[in-house]
């Protein structure tokens, strides 16, 4: 389909009012929270694995590396079982909610964020760690210095995690259910699940428009993170 024919669609807006913003909102809400949680878990793991030796470290490493290639539909299935009525989290009544989607995105985003952060953290010169300590830094100060020194690598890690989360279809479809409420506003429908729905129903033009929105968001987030990294470098 030629691109030009998709442009008027942006102007005509074939969707119900508020529909597109609501799926953008759900996409961002789920991905941002999941990636934030993943980062909060990944950085301490990366610091501990980067600084200390412990038995089973190699095993943990291979678990993380396996996690990077874990099929998302399988993660979706596992989370679905966990939150279903008979599952261990059944009492929380999370099935087909954004929270369930956050859980599955968290499981998917954490391995790449941890692995890439770990590579960045181990890349920080040991002499720099020594210097921070010699200048009177506590363990926490030294860890903060390492995070600052590794900030570009960590930003890359977060971006990779975000990219995986926001472009993911399989697991959010399974645990979220691609639901809109009666007034057509998205409950658990994301950009990706909306696109696959449009495409399946043969509405390729609208699918393309939503695809363009998704790509724009990913590019914008990349630009913001890179920009933050640069100003951070200037002010530090």
């Amino acid at each position, binding site marked *: 389909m030629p691109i030009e024919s998709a442009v008027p669609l942006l102007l005509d807006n074939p969707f119900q009012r508020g529909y597109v913003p609501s799926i953008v909102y759900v996409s961002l809400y789920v991905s941002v929270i999941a990636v934030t949680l993943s980062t909060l878990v990944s950085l301490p793991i990366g610091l501990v694995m980067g600084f200390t030796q412990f038995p089973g470290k190699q095993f943990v490493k291979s678990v993380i590396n396996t996690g990077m290639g874990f099929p998302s539909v399988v993660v979706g299935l596992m989370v679905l079982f966990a939150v279903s009525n008979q599952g261990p989290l059944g009492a929380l009544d999370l099935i087909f909610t954004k929270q369930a989607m956050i859980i599955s995105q968290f499981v998917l985003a954490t391995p790449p964020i941890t692995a890439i952060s770990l590579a960045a953290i181990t890349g920080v010169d040991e*002499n*720099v760690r020594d*210097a*921070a300590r010699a200048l*009177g830094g506590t363990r926490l100060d030294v860890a903060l210095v390492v995070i600052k020194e590794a900030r570009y690598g960590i930003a890359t890690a977060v971006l990779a995690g975000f990219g995986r989360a926001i472009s993911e279809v399989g697991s959010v479809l399974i645990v979220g259910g691609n639901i809109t409420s009666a007034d057509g506003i998205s409950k658990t429908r994301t950009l990706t699940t909306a696109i696959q729905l449009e495409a399946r129903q043969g509405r390729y033009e609208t699918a393309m428009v939503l695809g363009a929105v998704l790509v724009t968001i990913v590019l914008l987030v990349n630009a913001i993170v890179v920009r933050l990294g640069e100003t951070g470098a200037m002010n530090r």
Partner: protein
Amino acid sequence: MIRLSNVSHSYGVEQVVDDVSLDVEPGEVVAVIGPSGVGKTTLLRTMALFLEPDAGTVALDGDAVWDAAEDERLALRRRIGMVFQEASLFDASVARNVEYGLRVRQDWRERIREQLRSLAGSTNPAAAVEDALEVVGLADKLDQQARSLSGGEAQRVSFARALAYEPSYLLLDEPTSDLDPRNTGLIEEAVFEARDRGIGVVVATHDMHQAERVADRVGVLLGDGFTEVGPTERIFDDPSDERTRKFISGELVY
């Protein structure tokens, strides 16, 4: 006074520092000379309270360091500065590097406030930061990025970074071995300035001429502890130990 008493340290089976005793007073420069691999760095790291010795005691002004609780030990450690052979500056501006020691000594509320201020773009370096950079002749490089400095400038910033928080003792591990004569001279002048401020300075070096130029006292480390510790002039002119004499005259080659 930093007092090492009968300190030993080994890595695995290899005894690196063996039964070493040394006192360092405020306002004096002590050079530790000896060939590479003889344990100078390990000795300095022990004095910097980085390493707990396998045997012997380390005391700072009478306080036995490794008997103290961890927070007391941090307070003791913070009275000592250390400059390494490599500058190892943080990837930030010169000012932020030199501030670092001051910053970690502030409480968290003050640190967060300062972080916000610097994000807003108003940085106002402390007088101590400017003063420390003045000592190494780099006051004009305040806003430059550390990674854009030359090797000699970076090492001088590294010295200023340790001087800025006014330590009682300053330990320099081969501080000029990678530097040209001019930068070496500037570091040595900074050593004198530190001494004049009442700081006790320890310089580990394999450069005997440097030891002769800067030190009030010299310790000669030849494998198994000091062969001799004494006033610079006497050690160089009239060593009482035979191995010291051979090392200084260049007969003892490692």
